[in-house]
């Protein structure tokens, strides 16, 4: 594992906070894209020896998480002509505070888990859990479908970081399956975003409230 790993993880953590604190959808999508690129770099950094396999996988990661999916989201945003997340269920400052508390809790929890010798002292586990929490927060407290999809992406990014502990143990096929599944999930969500857009003339999932107990 190279020395670049921990600085990259710090960048990812800072991006988490940036995402929690902003209301502009463009900034949320760009932040997600930046995190995708950082993940690609992280994938190269955790490998002791850089192989073609690693570079290829990193390239696919950056292409998917950094370019393709943010591009799809940007297009959906333009088509729907919305710019801002308004009136989130939990405000931006409280979201930041919750994110801070969550990151602290992730650091504490990660310390209770015994690490293999080559990983001791690394931030990987706590960064992973903190990113998962950030994604979960975005997913549950925002109203726009686009922000919810980015929340899901951030959550998947957190899971991805955890997977980096296992680069030796994970066969290529599973890694690829992970990425493919993500793409398909987002693809299906994209279709649905289009339908929500057409049915309700907006991307506000708060209007999806017909189904509930009375």
């Amino acid at each position, binding site marked *: 594992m190279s020395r670049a790993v921990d600085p990259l993880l710090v960048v990812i953590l800072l991006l988490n906070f940036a995402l929690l604190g902003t209301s502009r959808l463009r900034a949320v999508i760009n932040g997600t894209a930046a995190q995708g690129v950082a993940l690609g770099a992280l994938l190269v950094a955790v490998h002791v020896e850089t192989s073609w396999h690693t570079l290829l996988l990193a390239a696919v990661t950056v292409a998917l998480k950094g370019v393709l999916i943010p591009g799809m989201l940007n297009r959906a945003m333009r088509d729907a002509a919305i710019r801002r997340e308004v009136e989130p269920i939990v405000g931006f400052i409280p979201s930041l505070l919750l994110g801070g508390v969550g990151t602290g809790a992730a650091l504490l929890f990660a310390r209770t888990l015994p690490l293999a010798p080559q990983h001791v002292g690394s931030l990987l586990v706590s960064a992973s859990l903190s990113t998962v929490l950030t994604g979960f927060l975005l997913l549950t407290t925002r109203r726009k479908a686009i922000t919810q999809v980015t929340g899901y992406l951030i959550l*998947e990014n957190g899971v991805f970081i955890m997977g980096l502990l296992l680069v030796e143990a994970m066969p290529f096929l*599973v890694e690829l399956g*992970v990425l493919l*599944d993500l793409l398909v999930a987002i693809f299906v969500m994209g279709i*649905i975003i289009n*339908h929500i857009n057409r*049915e309700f003339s907006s991307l506000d999932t708060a209007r*999806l409230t017909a*189904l509930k107990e009375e």
Partner: protein
Amino acid sequence: MVLALALVLVPLGLAPVAFLLPSERWRPWLLPLGGAARLALTAAALPRQDVTALSGWLQLDALGKVLLLLLDVLFFLCALYAPAYLKMRASRDNRALCGCMLAFLGTSGLVAQAHHLGLLWVAIEATTLASAPTLYFNRNTRSLEATWKYLLIGSVGIALALLGSFFLAYSAVRGGAGSSLLVEDLVRDAARLSPAWLHAAFIFLFVGYGTKMGLAPMHTWKPDAYGEAPGLVGTLLAGGLTGCAFLAVLRFFQICQAAGQAAFARQIMIAAGLVSMLVAGAFMARQRDYKRMLAYSSVEHMGILVLGVGVGGGALFGALLHLLNNGLTKGVMFLSAGNIHRAFGSRLTTEVSGALRRVPVSGALFLAGFFAVTGTPPFGPFISEFIILRAAMQGDQVWVAVVFLVAITVVFLGMGATVLQIVQGEPRPGREPTGFRDTALTVGPPLALLALVLLLGVYLPPPLQALLAEAARALEPRS
């Protein structure tokens, strides 16, 4: 080798055919074709011990066989129901429904056989994606909302399950148990798994796959999805998809059991099971929408399944038998509820009554299904619930048995009030007949399902008994 792959690829291969076939009228007949083909393949695979492919990544063991049997019987009978149903709904495009149902059948075959943790995860995710478009069959805002919730909540569950799988893999790496993610290897080297990581892994996996099963409090997608989906899709979700997620939970329970950490997993499962049963009971009281009521019934029965595994001992056999009983009974209820919905054009008890008069067979099936699903003798669920209850009493878990009894009584009363309102009395004035009548093709499949539920209640065929016992042994501690 060929058989293991055929179980997945034959239905999966028919899915593009369904998408390409231009005829709305002939396309639904692909479903019984695919269902019959898979049923035949499963029948060929059941007596064999050597159904395996891709160097052990796919293997059909006793647990997988139980799930496969349930899936194929349910799918085949639903498929027989489909052409008549889709003919009634001719105004809706059935391309996505037929194609995705076949894709679901194929991917569920993958779940039943996957013995590699990564592959199992991919397969479960695939079943989610394949089933999502079927919820959007009605193409209105309500079904859109249900699909969105299903996809988003389901995907989060799946993501947490992946995190749990990584934790489990790391517990093997940390403990020096090698780098294989095959269930067999993990079970063999279970003693070397790192307990702290294994515990964290089980929590994430249980929450993740529990979301897909629809255990409380992660069940919120269920009432919406089952309420908006056509009856035959509801059957496949409530009987089939939840069974797939249950199998995933069982695989990880197997590993915990082998690692000697089952006590931890069992506590979680007992608690989650009882909470699910109680939550379901609370939401079923005064439920006015009878399809949402079925969703809460599904939450209850998912609770019974994990509770059975948590209680352990004889209850393991009971839980596996209950998997079959619940799936088949849900088929009876969803299909007959779909018929009643067609005959009245409403899903609310405030508007529907006198189902026994307007659609006598469907009404009677719905009523019989209610008695079966609430555990009334002589139907199958009574036997399986009784086995679980008896094991809880014998295993010194009397308080579990008490809460269990309270919960099923509350469910019986709440559900009974709704069901009786629907089937009894006269159709309300102003609710004119929609032209729907019971026909052989719309009541035949639920009738066949009810016959099976009744059969399981009075006579358990010895080969099935042996299969269930073998599957239960796989979940017991190794002596």
